């Protein structure tokens, strides 16, 4: 009977696995025409070097922003990790419930267990980590050097045909009278 049961289990597993072509990865995603880059707005761009700026800034006029919003109306949202968390209320709620249960049980465990040195250290570590995390969020720690550090190699990179990557602040400015649309202000320090 036991042998038969074991044999049946193996057969069931095999029968499920083989026709399923189990865990075959999804086919390589072929970009559909909708996913290919497409022009949604044509405008002009002025690049201005600024020796007093610390961060690169992209200034967009209000009228242009409205045009952009209209053009982006039909674009599918990006399913990144952050947006996935933000937009999946069920998953976020369950994560919160489990986190609540975890902290509650951890508190009960700490309270019930004897105050040994190791546990005090663990509690201090937990509190310290939470405090550091909160402080990091508040002061925007890990911000890195100012944007001018990254943008200072832009002229050399442009002459060599290399890309340059750096942070940028996007500003919405009132419509100007000079007719200029977008303006990119790059921090540049004289050498």
């Amino acid at each position: 009977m036991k042998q038969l049961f074991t044999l049946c289990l193996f057969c069931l597993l095999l029968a499920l696995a083989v026709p399923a072509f189990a865990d075959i990865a999804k086919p390589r995603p072929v970009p559909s025409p909708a996913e290919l880059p497409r022009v949604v707005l044509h405008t002009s761009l002025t690049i201005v070097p600024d020796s007093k700026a610390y961060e690169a800034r992209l200034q967009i006029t209000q009228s242009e922003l409205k045009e952009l919003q209209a053009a982006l109306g039909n674009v599918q949202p990006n399913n990144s990790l952050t947006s996935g968390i933000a937009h999946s209320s069920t998953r976020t709620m369950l994560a919160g419930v489990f986190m609540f249960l975890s902290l509650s049980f951890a508190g009960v465990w700490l309270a019930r267990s004897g105050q040994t040195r190791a546990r005090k250290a663990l509690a201090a570590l937990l509190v310290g980590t939470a405090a550091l995390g909160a402080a990091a969020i508040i002061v925007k720690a890990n911000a890195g050097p100012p944007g001018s550090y990254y943008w200072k190699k832009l002229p050399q990179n442009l002459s060599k045909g290399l890309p340059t990557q750096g942070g940028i602040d996007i500003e919405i400015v009132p419509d100007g009278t000079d007719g200029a649309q977008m303006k990119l202000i790059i921090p540049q320090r004289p050498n």
Partner: protein
Amino acid sequence: MERTANLDLTAWRAATATHTDRQLSVRVFVAILLACASLSALLASWLPLQVSVVTVFLFAGPHNWFELRYFLMRLPVRFGKSRNFFLTAFAGIGGLTIAYVSLPVLYSFGFWPDSAWPTILASWNTLLLLWLALLIRLRSQQKSTSDWSWTVPVALGLCSLNWLAPEFFSLAIVYAHPLVALWFLDRHLRRTRPAWLRAYRRSLCLLPLLLIAMVWQLSRTPALADDNGLFWRITQHAGAQLLPGVSSHVLVAVHVFLEMLHYGVWLVALPLIARQHASREGGRNLRARIWEVRTVPLARHPRGFPRLVATALGLGVFFVVVLWLGFSVDYATARDVYFTVAIAHVLAEAPFLLKML
């Protein structure tokens, strides 16, 4: 008087010789361990895709057979007080494996939209964590000296992280599973070769150093050319889609390196240590022991199940041969099927490791 002195001297010489032999064997063990780990890291960094193909082809099936035999060796004839533990373990292994294997079937039928799959994946991961927490709870009831209640908040915390990013949690299992073999080796050494344990644990410090060196060396390398279906599957299995900012060369190399360690422990280290242990205990015909059903306590015991053990081991050999044939005919498909069905051995490791703690 002279005879007594000679006797003492003989005993001292014997003790010194044993101590020297032990020191030598520890050094040889550590040297082999470090050499194997370094060589694995080198090969995995050099040709990650090719080494991945070869190692899975050669060692995936046999290492599962050795694991099966190891688990049978550790299975008691009567469950006794561990009845609830083993029933929970087997029910969990069966249920979770069937659920995991049926996920691709359901995906192919298109029962749920793509947006629902992270939730389904998170549900399976949660069941896994809760099953593990229950097993730990049952095991801790048998060990009155140790307090494992801290594992409950840890399991719930992991559940929370899993619901935030289920795909990343699954990827973490892919990378963490090979390391469980090192834990098995640790527990086994503690029982059979306690003199080697300290050296083994020290040599484990090399592991993070090797990983850091691999990541440091390969992080600036271009992504691997995954232009054919097989190589693409390997990079996806290592998490290239989930971590687009990390070079797939790093991901595949690290994964292959950990897999090689895993196979090395199950195929070489544990059988060799068991053999040496058997020789110290006066075992005979060591070369044939691994094939003998009677070496498994479950089969040797008067009230044991020799036929069941023989059938299980025989079926294991059969599946290894079938796997090799499958790899030969259609490597990519056989690899996908293997890595899905192999979730059973990942799950089975948990209860047997817990029984050793």
